[in-house]
């Protein structure tokens, strides 16, 4: 299995909101990294998880599948999952796979934190 070329930084914004900055290539091989970022973000207080895709360089269908798995885990913890920073190309992929029906997409971090979808 090829080594993932991805970094994830977890930023806490206040008590309940966590932003995960995703940079690089999102494939199925990154699942352990994403899940450990999720563990770091979920400390019992977190009710909203915001994925920042501004640094996304590549994503294949395995990456989309991994996001579905993450969504299931977040739903289990009654956490809301949202995203911002998607290019037109990746926003279209979210719409094509109908992932946008479960992960709210925002234009930027400010609107994501305020919960104002465009």
């Amino acid at each position, binding site marked *: 299995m*090829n080594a993932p070329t991805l970094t994830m930084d977890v930023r806490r914004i206040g008590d309940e909101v966590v932003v995960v900055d995703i940079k690089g290539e999102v494939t199925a091989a990154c699942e352990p990294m994403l899940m450990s970022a999720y563990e770091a973000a979920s400390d019992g207080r977190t009710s909203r998880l915001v994925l920042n895709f501004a640094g996304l360089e*590549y994503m294949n*269908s395995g990456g989309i599948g991994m996001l579905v798995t993450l969504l*299931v885990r977040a739903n289990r913890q009654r956490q809301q999952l949202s995203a911002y920073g998607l290019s037109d190309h990746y926003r279209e992929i979210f719409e094509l796979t109908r992932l946008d029906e479960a992960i709210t997409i925002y234009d930027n971090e400010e609107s994501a934190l305020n919960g104002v979808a465009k």
Partner: protein
Amino acid sequence: MTETAGPDRVRSAEQIGLSAREAAATPVPHPTSNAPPRNAAQAAGPRDTDSWARKVDRLEVDPRAGVRGTNVAGRRLTGPIQGFGKMWQKTYRMKAGPGIAPEQAIATWREHFPEFWPKGNRFAGALTGINPGDVALLDLAIGGGVKLSTGVFVLYADAESFTLMTPQGHMFAGWITFSAEREGPQDGGETVVQALVLMRANDPLYEIAMTFGGHGKEDKFWAATLTALGERLGLPNPVVDTKTTCVDTKRQWRHANNVWHNSMIRSVLQTIAAPLVGLAHMVRRGKDPAQV
């Protein structure tokens, strides 16, 4: 809950030798078929740009020979989020050895995908193989002489993987990713070929059917498909390992009304109604002077 079964080995329907052309196969370029060409700015986008299908709201299909072709046109795509039943991840893996490159395995799979399907099932795809945006029509044997007519959409395809997504009415809502990669010492080891299904049964009736034998049938189906691919690649004794994991035990009752699109019910009704429809066509033609 995790259930693991296998290794599993099922004989393929067909035994076909690997041609010299396939042995030297290179990935087929993906002429996307469901949208106009991209402009220069889009072409300069991420390197996965041409691997993804363009966005579609509802599927459009052309008639294909050998399949009924119903229950696909006008349907929306459904992922695991839109399904009803428990969410499952099923992995079917086969070791292909160090002599077969992942790209070669996937090129063969994409080019000859229908030939690897078990007997009694029909996959009518595009003549050019599996390319992003293609819609394939399926007739699946469900017993009692009835064929379930549905389809799949090619969501993604590159040199090392391709993914099919299902429409409304299909047995499951989700996608199947077929991939090959080298595993082992510094990833220069042997090639492993894999089919990964991420799915929920589409509606309550399918959930019941999957619980009472459907999952087992599906396991045999994909094991047979991989075995047939292994034989085509020249493997002397292809063995398929199956791993099944329940990702979400909850059922999504808000999607119970997916049953309206159920292709199994519609296929049975279409089978029953076929003679009457044929008769009506004959009568109509008989009354029309232009047809006489």
